[in-house]
């Protein structure tokens, strides 16, 4: 695993080179959402909207009606919270091909409750016509562009920025989870940054005799992958969902709906931000504090299998492919 920086910044410019229909909208957070290079490379296709997110979302709908595909960039929170009515009536109802690129999902920002998009998946997947995607590594951040652009209607993307790991060599596929590990004791679903955390934990868990079936979800909606039902039906002890989102309405709810609809009689443990607002702090601190790190997952597995596996922080640290978080610094706003 390697760590890379500014993946979206560089990739978007390359990707959009032969796509004149692609325009980028920004709301005064151009550098913070890694579209500065796009603005410099294609100034004619870059539209600054300043801090007018409601206006920007409606205008994106208008531009899409003229045959263009606006890629709207700002912090997720300012789109799905501040401009939700505009997202719904100017974009989603008319089923327009606007790509809503939401940055700072969950606790990936030290900016506190005003900046942390902790219930965006719940809200966006409740919107008719909307497709909801989430990126978990550099390969996702790159390949999500093609996945989104191929969709006829609007798409919401939980996007990562700054320093991110490259975990996968295969591209994201719409409606297809990635199977990262096979196992019979516990089935684990992750999305976004919890995938990397889980990959540390599952190695140690396996060494202690608990086998994990691990799937990484990148499509929250439509949530129709048959592999999800299949994996949820199999485990000896139960299913765990692990998400950088509140436990209401996101990945845990998506899996619960599939299990209930198909009568899967397994225990379901939903790990995530426990129905609370968070606060500002470094990412490692927030992940520990809100139970989103590898250790939190280990404890949940122990509880589910009813056994103390005697795994500590040091065991988890040992499996890290350095320097994973060694030189990690909190991103500035």
């Amino acid at each position, binding site marked *: 695993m390697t760590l890379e920086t500014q993946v979206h910044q560089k990739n978007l410019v390359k990707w959009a080179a032969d796509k004149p229909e692609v*325009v980028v909208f920004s709301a005064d957070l151009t550098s913070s959402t890694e579209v500065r290079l796009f603005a410099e490379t294609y100034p004619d296709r870059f*539209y600054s*909207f*300043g801090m*007018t997110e*409601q*206006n*920007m*979302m*409606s*205008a*994106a*709908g*208008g*531009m*899409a*009606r*003229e*045959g*263009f595909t*606006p890629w709207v960039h700002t912090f997720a929170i300012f789109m799905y919270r501040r401009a939700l*009515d*505009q997202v719904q*009536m*100017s974009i989603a*109802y*008319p*089923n327009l091909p606007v790509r809503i690129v939401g940055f700072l999902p969950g606790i990936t920002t030290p900016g506190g409750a005003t900046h942390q998009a902790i219930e965006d998946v719940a809200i966006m997947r409740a919107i*008719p*016509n909307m497709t909801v995607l989430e990126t978990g590594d550099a390969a996702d951040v790159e390949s999500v562009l093609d996945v989104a652009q191929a969709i006829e*209607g609007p798409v919401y993307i939980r996007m990562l920025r700054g320093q991110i790991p490259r975990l996968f060599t295969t591209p994201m596929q719409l409606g297809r989870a990635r199977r990262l590990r096979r196992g019979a004791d516990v089935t684990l679903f992750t999305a976004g940054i919890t995938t990397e955390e889980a990959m540390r934990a599952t190695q140690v868990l396996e060494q202690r005799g608990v086998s994990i079936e691990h799937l990484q979800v990148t499509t929250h909606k439509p949530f129709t992958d048959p592999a999800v039902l299949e994996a949820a039906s199999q485990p000896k002890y139960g299913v765990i969902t692990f998400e950088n989102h509140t436990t209401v309405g996101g990945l845990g709810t998506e899996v619960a709906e599939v299990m209930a609809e198909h009568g899967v009689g397994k225990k379901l443990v939903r790990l995530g931000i426990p129905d609370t607002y968070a606060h500002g702090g470094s990412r490692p601190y927030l992940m520990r504090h809100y139970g989103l790190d590898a250790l939190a997952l280990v404890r949940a597995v122990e509880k589910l299998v009813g056994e103390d596996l005697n795994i500590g922080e040091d065991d988890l640290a040992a499996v890290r492919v350095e320097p994973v978080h060694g030189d990690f610094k909190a991103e500035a706003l």
Partner: protein
Amino acid sequence: MNPLDETRRVADGIRRRVTEFTLKNGGGYLSQACSSAEILATLYTRVMKLGPSVAPPVPPPFGGVPGKNPNYTTGAGYNGPRKPELDRFFISPVHYALVLYATLVETGRMAEEGLAMFNADGSTVEMIGAEHSPGHELMAGSLGQALSQVIGIALGRRRKGETGRNFVFMSDGEFMIGQTWEAMETLSFYKLDSVIAYVDANGQSADGRINEVMGIEPLKERLEAFGAVAVEIDGHDVEALAAAAETPHEGKPLVVIARTNPYCGVEVLSERAPKFHYIRFTKPEEKEALERFFVEKWGGQK
């Protein structure tokens, strides 16, 4: 014949038809017809360059919402084909829908039978217009969103080198809304002179007189401060309404503030001051008074 006589005939027809429906339905957005009849009549007969309707004279029934739906229809076709050199029309306060439908009938864009479907279940001729409703192109019922949507359309048309203008019909109540002002500053920022807004400044909103609900004046000065060219005219003067579109506004959006009277042409409504937003009949005498007025002014109902 003075071409403006035709405009006045259309305006009179709009008032007559909306009054008729208000009587028939036991209530309606009648004051909006009173205030905006000349604005819409002038836009459709004198100002906008639209092709003939490309939509069925009798509107299709509701075919479902946009999405994976082959039966979906848009109401935009009643305003003619989409062509680079033609103007486009966008209505923002879509509770004026009946006024627009009446305009389409009076200008030969929709059959009279279409109007009979107004507010009927399963019809596209809805009370609050949606983008499938005749003459409508956008989802605008959540007020304040249409102007921003038109920004995107105007920027898109500019990218394609289109020369047609983009007319937006607005209500003065929408200038209470933050998004409207975000749109205004953006129109100025992008020098979108292809956008021309006509505002029915009837001084009325849902609660009553706007100046008792929220402060939006002085509207002309506020708009100018936001970088628009604004003109203020008598909104029942069809000559002034037609001339206003010719106001020089290179590099700037143009806003025509049409000062109007919410009971113009149906003076019997004046007794309802200060509330005109939705005309209801609470007593039989109220309905009888409007019926008498109708017969005296326009003869018998159809």
